[in-house]
């Protein structure tokens, strides 16, 4: 619209605004809201979205419909949200992969994780946890470091995929401890866990949600969590930071976002409804059962700052780790 005069621009903008306004001048939301999950159904991101949707419907009076748009490591779904009309009727889950790791790892991510989005609320943070096969004769992080140093290149660490948080946590661990272990990527964490249980690989950094059952049943040994704070689900488990790797801090996270340009009023109401939903006791209880925790990040502005910091962190990490393919 570069050639238009100011007046024409304003008129066009007003028309656009009118077009996106629902009939009868009703306030948002006047029709169901689509919640895009950029992953297949059944995963932790999907489950938390489906837990939250009824709460949002209760608070805002319209159905919130979860729609899975998986593909390209979450980029397809995230791009769909970024390119949607900013009318408040399409929001979606954005995660550490789509908004921090992929932009650093992949050659052509079609969106900007900061500029193309309006970050609404950080929904969940899950620590990763360092787990080892029970046959491995190490009971703590220092013991693991000593064991690995005595056997350079002999230990294998598994991950759900190249460039996953599990992979990057392993690479960071290697750097900080000066150990050399071989990365074995899998197609999804469950396959990696199967080989860890069987003892074909020795250790992995797994998402606490999926690792929790096997840790509790004693089928794998947990050595530490990757966050600065201990996890409420496993309060006796030390952090890597406590175990001598000062400043080791990695969390898997995801939250709700809309396209950039949403009206401040809608952003405010959505953000408040999401946070209220997260605080509902039944939602909280179900999330805790899966090892997921709410977050200290409480406002859209804080969330944007958080995403930006994560993006910078992983840009650096990906570069250092050599995980980038090209």
């Amino acid at each position, binding site marked *: 619209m570069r050639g238009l005069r100011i007046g024409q621009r304003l008129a066009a903008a007003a028309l656009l605004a009118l077009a996106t306004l629902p009939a009868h001048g009703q306030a948002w939301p006047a029709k169901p809201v689509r919640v895009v999950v950029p992953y297949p159904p059944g995963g932790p991101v*999907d489950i938390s979205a489906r837990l939250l949707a009824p709460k949002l419907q209760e608070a805002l009076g319209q159905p919130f419909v979860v729609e899975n748009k998986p593909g390209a490591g979450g980029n397809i779904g995230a791009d769909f949200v970024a390119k949607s009309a900013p009318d408040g009727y399409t929001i979606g889950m954005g995660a550490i992969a789509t908004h921090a790791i992929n932009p650093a790892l992949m050659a052509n991510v079609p969106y900007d994780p900061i500029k193309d989005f309006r970050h609404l609320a950080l929904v969940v943070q899950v620590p990763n946890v360092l787990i080892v096969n029970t046959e491995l004769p190490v009971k703590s992080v220092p013991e693991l470091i000593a064991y690995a140093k005595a056997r350079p290149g002999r230990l294998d660490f598994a991950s759900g995929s190249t460039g996953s948080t599990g992979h990057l946590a392993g690479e960071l661990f290697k750097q900080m401890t000066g150990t050399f272990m071989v990365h074995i990527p899998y197609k999804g964490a469950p396959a990696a866990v199967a080989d860890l249980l069987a003892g074909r690989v020795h250790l992995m950094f797994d998402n606490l949600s999926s690792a929790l059952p096997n840790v509790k049943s004693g089928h794998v040994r947990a050595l530490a969590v990757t966050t600065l704070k201990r996890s409420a689900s496993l309060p006796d488990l030390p952090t890597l930071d406590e175990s001598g790797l000062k400043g080791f801090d990695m969390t898997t996270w995801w939250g709700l976002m809309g396209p950039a340009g949403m009206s401040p009023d809608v952003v405010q109401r959505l953000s408040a409804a999401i946070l209220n939903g997260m605080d509902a006791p039944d939602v909280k209880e179900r999330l805790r059962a899966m090892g997921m925790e709410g977050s200290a990040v409480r406002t859209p502005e804080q969330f944007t700052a958080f995403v930006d910091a994560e993006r910078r962190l992983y840009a650096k990490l990906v570069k250092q780790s050599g995980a980038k393919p090209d």
Partner: protein
Amino acid sequence: MEILSNLALGFGVALSPFNLLMCLVGVLLGTLIGVLPGVGPVATIAMLLPITFNLNPIAALIMLAGIYYGAQYGGSTTAILVNLPGESSSVVTCLDGYQMARQGRAGPALATAALGSFFAGCVATLIVAMFAPPLAEVALKFGPSEYFSLMVLGLVAAVVLAHGSLIKAIAMVILGLMLGLVGTDVNSGVLRFAFGIAELADGIGFVTVAMGMFGLAEIIANLEHKGTREVFTSKVKHLWPTKEDFKRIWAPVLRGTFLGSALGILPGGGALLASFGAYTLEKKVSKNSAEFGKGAIEGVAAPESANNAGAQTSFIPLLTLGIPSNAVMALMIGAMMIQGIAPGPQVMTERPQLFWGMIASMWLGNLMLVVLNLPLIGLWIKLLTVPYRILYPSILVFMCIGVFSLSNNPFDCVLMAAFGLLGYICVKLECEPAPLILGFILGPLMEENLRRAMLLSRGDPLVFFQKPISATFLVVSIILLVIIALPNIRKKREEVFVEET
């Protein structure tokens, strides 16, 4: 006996009116979505997950499991009637089931599928009840090298699948392998053959290929018979298998059940092989092998039993190790976690009611399915008398809805259309699509496991022969290859082909 008291406990739980109702709801829904081509259990279970929040965990899981094996039953219905495989396991059912339908024997084919599945379901449920924990140990014995060797065996056996020329079969397998290369390389994360299309980053979807190559291609090919037949077939001889049919299917059902149960236990794609493996085996051992691909009832009985047995035993790695063997199982884990149940070996000891209740409900669900499906056969057959001009457009619409629902992306529909064209070309060239599908499924799994095994052995290829299970598979593959290659046997093989074509 402990097993009896456990089963009594299980049936006590499963026979409570509410759980019985949930089981019925599950299998009804499952049958329905199984019959709609492409609309799979994954999308359905995902949509129903929030409803299960408010159910008690046992009822929720009983219903979800019912959807899963209900869909397995329903899926074979479309495979037989209109050549539309909704999932990997029913691809093989298309081969002979659809041919039977064309000869007016859709009734016996459907009945065979239902009865074979029921028998397999009963046996597999018993296996899960009696041997789940020790079998889980077996599942853990399968690592990358074992899987790789198993896939090699599967691929070598695939050549037997073809009933045209050997060269064409091999060409189709290789084409399938190449299509399987599309997507992100697991080891390096590099995109291969994606041509900048984000939708191809995760590879080409199996359902998309199968529906295009089988269903769509069949529809296009049928359009050529202009004006000859208004309806699919009007000569429906009988609904029920004859005495002769029963004599022919009991052995294939037994063999299929056994093979399916064994392969279903393997979490890394073993179940995928079940129906292919059972079909190949039957073709080798059957007296009527010349009929295969032209409507042999054994070719329906064996893979259908195998796939249902595999579907049941694939609950073993889920319930005992917490490892999902396919997308539906992953969803079940999600459903369990939402209920605050950690899937894994402790389920059996900490929540015996849930564990045994689910196993008992599997058997009840199978019983319901067979009772439900046998009377429906008459109805399905009527479907075939619907005129083409109505039947085909409706099938196309359902196919598009189904493929779209895979990832809510129109790209998949376009891709399916492309594979429909490719399938039509293959029909014209008399190339069988089944070997292509097998190559397409096995190729990526083989590559992944080969490279992982090599990574773990630090580049030593001998690892495939040092592990006993892996070595056995490779030796059997080599023997098979020699048999195919030996000149006098090959001659005999070609004679068989002449008979067939």
